């Protein structure tokens, strides 16, 4: 094999021809990637492009089917995360690997190798916190912390191992714009100290802010390695998505009519130990408009969804009014009968039963409609309904009537949204409509929601994706720690104003919500 002859020495890490096969699916297909010492290298790609698979291979969580990893020019085999850490890799996962019931110090200690005691962990935590501006209270239980603070634990865990390469997987997806800027400053400082960073994202702006080199993945392959500052956002997007994705058309005639949903002074105590309470929520959605609700994950979105859908009824009936009927205390079934439809955040397990066929899954929201009669299931009607959803919403299925789990995220999301839209609801409430789906499916879903509103339904979209809300919403509010900001037309919002609301430091909010 030819020795590496570059004058600045070998790259810190080099992947050569990495492939990973899951059954028929080739998640990674011959990927080459090199990261120099001290470099912040971006790994860009749409959902499903193979980014997560690749970093899990690099971090020893999964085994590659083929290919080689070189560390400072030496071939290495990384059989487990422990081996990865011993080499000098640190990883901050998109879904944190934290233990809710344990304290911050315990969470950090459990990930450390070598000898330690809780008091040394505490003092080291203090040092790191000061150096990199990562404030953390060592004795708090993790479940009491915000997403931003949780992420800091993950970063501190890595930094305590003195990593040579830090991997961050979609780190800003749970942060407010201000928290994200804080994170970027920390990463700049780390890079200046000589630590390499592999930064995984599908957000172009932050990659252009942070990185000089970006490797773009599409369909499990490397399509280009570029300098993100030298290309326009449109060019990069085209590389990520392949054929250019059109914009959602919102120019159809737009007539806002009467109220379909009115929420007034809705307060709900937290469900269980770690839940978020809802406090005095006011919200109105009218026929013909899309109402957006922005916010960082874990600020009461799922609680709000449960209260609006009736999965968790409120104490009083008049706090939620759908189509003129007070329904605060009744269940989801009665609300559906009034013409409301709901799409929860979790596709598998909440919106759909993973091991059930699509035709069976139609029963979940159509049970009182045309697919059953006097308690008996009309099997053929359910199959026909599933077929019309599949055709009407471009759901790609491996077979005629597959189990829900066999569909890709985007296709299943199209199915569960289509299952509700096909009922022509007067009101639809959707939690994170395009979370983790590919660009094509996301566009189709957004278009379908906008079209539904233009056809005279009220649409409420809860989302963490600001770009999405600016694209589809007519009016918008921000949820923070169970409180909702005033609802304003999208044109009156700026990203900065939203960011401040997400942090709960917006002007006047205290006055509005004071008792």
């Amino acid at each position, binding site marked *: 094999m030819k020795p590496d002859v570059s004058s600045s020495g070998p790259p810190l890490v080099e992947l050569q021809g990495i492939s990973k096969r899951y059954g028929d699916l080739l998640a990674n297909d011959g990927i080459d990637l090199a990261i120099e010492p001290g470099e912040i290298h971006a790994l860009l790609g749409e959902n499903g492009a193979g980014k997560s698979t690749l970093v899990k291979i690099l971090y020893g969580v999964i085994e590659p089917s083929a290919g080689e990893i070189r560390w400072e020019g030496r071939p290495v085999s990384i059989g487990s995360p422990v081996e990865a850490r011993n080499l000098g890799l640190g990883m901050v996962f998109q879904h944190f690997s934290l233990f809710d019931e344990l304290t911050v110090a315990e969470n950090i200690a459990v990930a450390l190798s070598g000898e330690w005691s809780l008091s040394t962990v505490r003092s080291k935590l203090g040092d790191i916190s000061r150096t990199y501006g990562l404030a953390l209270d060592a004795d708090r239980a993790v479940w009491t912390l915000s997403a931003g603070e949780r992420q800091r634990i993950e970063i501190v865990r890595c930094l305590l191992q003195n990593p040579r390469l830090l991997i961050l997987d979609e780190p800003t997806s749970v942060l407010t714009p201000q928290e994200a800027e804080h994170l970027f400053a920390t990463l700049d400082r780390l890079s200046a100290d000589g630590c390499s960073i592999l930064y995984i994202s599908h957000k172009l702006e932050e990659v252009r802010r942070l990185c000089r080199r970006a490797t773009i993945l599409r369909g499990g392959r490397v399509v280009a390695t570029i300098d993100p500052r030298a290309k326009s956002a449109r060019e990069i997007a085209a590389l990520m998505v392949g054929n250019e994705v059109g914009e959602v058309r919102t120019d159809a005639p737009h007539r806002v009519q009467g109220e379909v949903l009115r929420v007034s002074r809705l307060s709900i105590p937290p469900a269980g130990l770690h839940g978020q309470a809802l406090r005095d929520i006011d919200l109105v959605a009218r026929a013909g408009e899309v109402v957006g609700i922005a916010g960082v994950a874990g600020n009461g979105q799922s609680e709000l969804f449960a209260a609006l859908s009736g999965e968790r009824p409120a104490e009083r009936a008049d706090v939620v009014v759908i189509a003129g009927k007070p329904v605060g205390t009744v269940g989801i079934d009665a609300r*559906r009968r009034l013409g409301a439809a709901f799409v929860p955040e*979790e596709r598998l397990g909440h*919106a759909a*039963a*993973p*091991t059930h066929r699509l035709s069976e899954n139609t029963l979940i*929201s159509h*049970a009182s409609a045309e697919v059953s009669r006097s*308690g008996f299931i009309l099997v053929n009607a359910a199959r026909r309904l599933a077929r019309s959803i599949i055709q009407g919403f471009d759901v790609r299925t491996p077979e005629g009537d597959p189990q829900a789990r066999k569909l890709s995220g985007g296709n299943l999301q199209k199915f569960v949204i289509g299952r509700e839209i096909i009922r022509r609801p007067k009101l639809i409430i959707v939690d994170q409509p395009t979370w983790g789906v590919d660009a094509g499916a996301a566009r189709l879903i957004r278009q379908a929601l906008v079209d539904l509103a233009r056809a005279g339904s009220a649409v409420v979209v809860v989302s963490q994706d600001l770009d999405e809300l600016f694209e589809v919403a007519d009016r918008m509010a921000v949820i923070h720690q169970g409180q909702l900001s005033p609802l304003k037309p999208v044109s009156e919002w700026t990203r900065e104003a939203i960011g401040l609301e997400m942090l709960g430091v917006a002007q006047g909010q205290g006055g509005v919500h004071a008792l």
Partner: protein
Amino acid sequence: MRFELTPRASVSPVMRALAPVAAFVTAFLIAGFVIWLMGRSPVAAFDVYVLQPLSDPWSLQELAVKATPLALIAIGLSYCFRANLWNIGAEGQYVIGAVLGSWLALRTHGTEAGAWVLPLMLILGVVGGALYGLIPAFLKTRFGVNEILTSLMLVYVAQLILDYLVRGPWRDPKGFNFPQSVTFDPSATLHPVLEGGRVHYGALFALVAVLLTAVILGRTLFGYRLKLTGDAPRAARFAGFSAKATTMAVFAISGGLAGLAGISEVSGQIGQLQPSISPGYGFTAITVAFLGRLNPIGILIAALVVALTFIGGESAQILLKLPLDLTQAFQGILLLCVLAADALVSYRIRFVTRGGGK
């Protein structure tokens, strides 16, 4: 060494059907090994346990008799298990059903009460079992108490209730102080299906329960509700199915069927109350339910197969001096094998010897 499990992309129906068979064979091999360890011939044991009962008309009838309570209880349990609820107190519900039904038999004993006695006894049996089954369900839905432990504890309580009654107020005064009730009148006796045969009408109840359940689970919204509650509880709530109502319903159904099994056994088979009215049918039925893959037809077959081990166990005790406990041990191993085989159907398992890095 370690294991690696990978979910199978698709599961063939053949494999699904073969898994319980493979589990059964494995359990037999293990039992044979135990018998060999005890210094007996596994071949002779197989002959006594399986071949002889199957080649003897008397034993074949006995098979149906023993399979009846097993099938009834296991069918009921399949409602619970499908909804992922763990009623392991069927033995207690069986006992209470038998007690409540027998109360009428004892009250009408020696009177000229007519044909209404038996149907009412059966209804009381169902009601008794259902009510007793509703106790853990109520504690779970109202207070969040784990149903596994409460339903099991109630088994011991039920057995003590029965014990108290047959030694105390319900003891036959002319029974030479034996702890047993009077023998039921003909009007309180569940008769054989065929004149002179041993198979009583309870077997028909079991068949009806199997067919009804097949329709309910496969074709009705209620059946779908159970499946959804078990497979994806959040989706069930999203569908508008109240978890509490589901819990109460399945415990009432399984308790009721266990109670029916209990009163049928007492009035059709034993003919009186005594301290022990079950060789552990309520627990064995758990094995039957899983061996039958929670499918009604499967359960019917499994009940017959497991009934064989009871009959074989009895004759092995007489012919080979093998203790009856061997049957219970076999049933435990069988359940373990069935659950492991279920996992093998869903996952591909590799044994990996540690290689490469540490």
